[in-house]
């Protein structure tokens, strides 16, 4: 039982990290808290479903194509909406939340209600680790989650675009004086965040069915992880994912599954009381001290 809890807790942690990475990336670079994040996740899910089931594309093409389309949707959202209100935090939140809400409700309006919306698993097979049986899709989630986190680190440390990302994140004015186009970087950051949401959707949604309301849950989980880890901190996101992921799984196994959904909310409250900037929110902490 303990081994099973550890294994499924690990998978749960990676799932949380996957859904939070994109949100954290966008916020860390452009300062935009993208409250349309859950909607982009669901958008990617439905796009894949449509491309696969209605258009008839093979899934191997439908999945990356939906990631691309979601990334474009993120970029368009920045260029046509967020750019005009950049820096006005409340307006950014209201705008992204409005876009997210209307996207999700549009799906409902268009009739995406029901249980038939499901994506295929990559390989329909289960393996045994000790006495614990686990499906290959969850193994893929772990592999892709780790790969995306590692890719993000390399990208932001060893590519020109990634270094521009970090430059804007560290000091936008100085970055501007060095010729870095902050609008372009902002667009790319929202687009990258949307692509991360889409990849998360492609690998996680085959575990169940695609439902519009799941978009809200994804947003809450991403927020919880980012607030606990420290907004904008990738390392913080990973640590917070493991804290919350294991807390949820141990709660379900050894206390009561009834309390699982309370765990992220309690964690948010606790971190706001103890360390408001989150575990690794260093910049904010400096601001707080000042």
């Amino acid at each position, binding site marked *: *039982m303990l081994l*099973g*809890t550890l294994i*499924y807790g690990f998978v*749960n942690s990676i799932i949380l990290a996957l859904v939070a990475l994109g949100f954290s990336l966008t916020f860390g670079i452009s300062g935009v808290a993208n409250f349309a994040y859950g909607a982009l996740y669901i958008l990617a899910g439905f796009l894949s479903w449509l491309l696969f089931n209605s258009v008839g594309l093979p899934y191997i093409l439908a999945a990356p194509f939906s990631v691309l389309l979601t990334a474009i949707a993120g970029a368009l959202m920045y260029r046509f909406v967020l750019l005009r209100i950049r820096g006005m935090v409340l307006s950014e939140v209201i705008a992204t939340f409005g876009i997210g809400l209307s996207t999700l409700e549009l799906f*409902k309006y268009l*009739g995406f*209600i*029901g*249980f*038939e919306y*499901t994506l*295929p698993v990559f390989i*329909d097979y*289960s393996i045994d680790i000790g006495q*614990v*049986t*686990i*499906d290959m*899709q*969850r193994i893929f989630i772990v592999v892709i989650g780790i790969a995306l986190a590692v890719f993000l680190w390399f990208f932001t440390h060893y590519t020109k675009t990634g270094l521009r990302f970090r430059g804007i994140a560290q000091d936008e004015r100085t970055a501007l004086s060095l010729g870095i186009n902050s609008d372009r970087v902002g667009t790319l950051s929202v687009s990258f965040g949307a692509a991360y949401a889409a990849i998360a959707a492609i690998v996680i949604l085959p*575990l*169940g*069915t695609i*439902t*519009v*309301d*799941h978009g*809200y*849950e994804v947003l809450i989980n991403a927020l919880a992880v980012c607030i606990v880890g420290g907004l904008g901190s990738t390392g913080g996101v990973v640590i917070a994912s493991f804290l919350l992921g294991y807390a*949820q*799984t141990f709660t*379900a*196994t050894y206390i*009561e*599954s*009834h309390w*699982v*959904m309370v765990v992220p909310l309690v964690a948010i409250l606790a971190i706001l009381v103890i360390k408001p900037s989150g575990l690794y929110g260093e910049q904010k902490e400096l601001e707080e001290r000042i």
Partner: protein
Amino acid sequence: MKKKLFLSILLLFLTPFIAFPGSFALAAEPIVIGVPTSLGFLEGKESLKAVEMAVDEINAKGGVMVGTVKRPFKIESIDIRDAAPGVPVPEALLGIEKIILEKKPVALVVGPFRSEALLAGMDIIAKYKMPMLGTIAMTPGSEAKIKKDPEKYKYVFRVSLNVIYWAKLLGGTMASLKNQFGFNKVYLMNQDILWARGTANAMKNRFFLKTGWEVLGHDQYPTGSSDFSSALMKAKSKGAGVLFTCFDMPESGVLVKQWKSMKVPALIAGFISPMAGEVAWKTFDGKIGGLMNAIFEIGNIPSEYYAPAKRFYDSYEKRYGKAIQSGHGPAPSYESVYILKEAIERAGSLDPDAIVAAIEKTDKMGVMGRIKFDEGHQVIYGNNPGQTATGCFFQWTKDGKRKIVYPKTLAEGEIVLPPWVKKVK
């Protein structure tokens, strides 16, 4: 000459009325039926479609006879979102009050999903004296309120199953499983909402523990939960023969997939909403053969042995191009419109008290069996559609068909265990 001219003009004037009587009944002031429910959920969406189907059928035949005038039905709907996670009951109640005040319906059908919203909403229904034929929320608490203060709460009826009848349906099926295969170890999993909690607790305390079953565990999941691995691991390690489930959220599809991927050698039997409709076979890649799921009202599934249920199911599919996918809601919602029509015609007026008195006297054969209400305004359920309203249990066959296996009167075959589940005796 004048007389001839007068008769000619009169004939000219009356010709359209004689030729197209139905059309001119439709010109009369419509009777508004309100449908306040969670339209963003499959059960709500399909229930509304069933109501539309019944209304169109009635209007095509000229409408409802109110006294001496035939009047058409007209539907007004509102999404009260009470089934969505995190939506507080007061928000759902605002929706109910809004449709009553703005659309001036004569009666409401379908109604809230969540029993919490139904119980709280009963005071609003009473305040506006609004007859309501509910078809989703299942708490027997509403009947208790009606029995305690019938004058105030008499406007609320339930055309679908309540938790007590539901538990009887489940109990009968579980007893069959025990008798046939010797199962006596059960693990309970349910969504943490009033009806599902009530069902699971009632089954645990009043059935399983009293009929020689060993209850290995009981986990309750908040709406929106999407990981069931901990309960499945516990059920597997403790040797459960039956996984008793009670979920009406879309995310419960994850449970089925996890059950399959974790190779849990126990039979899922209960209610998981994504498993109810025929598309589930495709949704779950054809790997749910052997699973057993309840259907709250026949008509939501066709029955070989009760023709009205099949007729309704087929008509719905023909009209909308897609069969009913939900196990709860559409059949009683369709039935509700006919109950209301007949009650209005018997009452001869739209007075709510007269309509309520007429609904109380309902005794008709419908798509889900015989419809009669008890003193708590609950439709009476049993195992024979010729005598009462009826729900059923079906099993997915290995070739993707839904075969009714309980009750005996409707059974299209015996329960067959899937290969990975072994019988105990």
